[in-house]
């Protein structure tokens, strides 16, 4: 019987040790990541980055996203809700991180739509119709194309702009910035430069609220 107690105690010890080590490690990483992203703050936002919400807001959410990423799509209404809950205090900057195959073309379409001032409409339409243009985790730009009716886009111009070097440069620069900021998954969030290390709705909400409280 005494042995069974030794065994159970050892098993519990292993679990406790694991949890303690994990939280210690995450804490250290959290600090290191925060410091690293503060040093690389110039990579956080580019003058061309699409922005939503009040320009003078003191809290800025930066989101690296891939339109083919289901979690990005699920977070989008939540992020909008966060902005509504803090009216005038929070804005959103989107950065491209096309990790899925062909997603670079999808974000180029967004960027081309932005030249026609239809970025957010196009983004929302793409999120709504995800099932229609994503097949086995591969983006099918030609199928998204058919979903863009009624947005007021000049499709001919859109097609022309897709070839532009400036758009390719922007997408590339966003990807490079993501690497600099250690973002390897989407959505990758920063709030006023602080990375969201433990991923989740609640954690993001807490981070935004703590920044709102600190700045207002």
């Amino acid at each position: 019987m005494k042995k069974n107690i030794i065994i159970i105690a050892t098993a519990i010890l292993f679990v406790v040790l694991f949890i303690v080590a994990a939280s210690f490690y995450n804490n250290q990483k959290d600090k290191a990541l925060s410091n690293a992203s503060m040093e690389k703050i110039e990579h956080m936002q580019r003058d061309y980055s699409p922005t939503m919400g009040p320009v003078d807001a003191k809290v800025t959410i930066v989101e690296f996203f891939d339109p083919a990423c289901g979690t990005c799509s699920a977070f989008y209404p939540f992020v909008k809700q966060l902005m509504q809950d803090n009216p005038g205090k929070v804005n959103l900057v989107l950065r491209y991180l096309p990790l899925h195959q062909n997603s670079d073309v999808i974000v180029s379409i967004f960027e081309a739509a932005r030249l026609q001032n239809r970025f957010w409409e196009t983004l929302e339409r793409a999120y709504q119709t995800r099932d229609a243009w994503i097949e086995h985790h591969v983006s099918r730009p030609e199928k998204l194309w058919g979903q863009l009716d009624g947005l007021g886009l000049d499709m001919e111009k859109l097609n022309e702009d897709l070839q532009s070097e400036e758009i390719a440069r922007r997408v590339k620069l966003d990807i490079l910035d993501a690497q600099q900021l250690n973002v390897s998954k989407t959505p990758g969030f920063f709030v006023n430069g602080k990375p969201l290390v433990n991923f989740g709705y609640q954690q993001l909400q807490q981070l935004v609220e703590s920044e709102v409280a600190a700045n207002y």
Partner: protein
Amino acid sequence: MVEDKIKKVSQLGWLLIFICWLIAMAALFGSLFFSEVMGLKPCVLCWWQRIFIYPLAVLFLVGMLTQGDKADRSVVRYTLPLAIIGLGFAIYHYLVYSGFIPESLQPCSKDLSCAEINLQLMGFVTIPMLSIFAYSTIIILLLIYRKRFC
């Protein structure tokens, strides 16, 4: 007198299995720490080594619990083969790691190289080294157990 001696001997047997279990548990939690906490993705060969060490954590536990105060002797029959196969993968992985077997000859996907060294504890201890250490210690202890108690 004799009973005392028998008891002492079976204590030693239990202790051997207990140490094996500790090693298997350390490997289980350690590998989960590397992959789930530190985010080091396990390559194909790492997975094969995991496959043969994870059941050992359960088998040794059952072997210790079922027979009251002493370990279940047949635990050796079921755990030794797993440990030996696992050691085979560990040695193979070590050879790939240290460059004796060229990368192109081994079955890793392109995006996750088994030859890439992404962790060195104290400057020289790599994950395949830990794996070889764990498997071979378990094998040695089991062989001692088999010789003395089976």
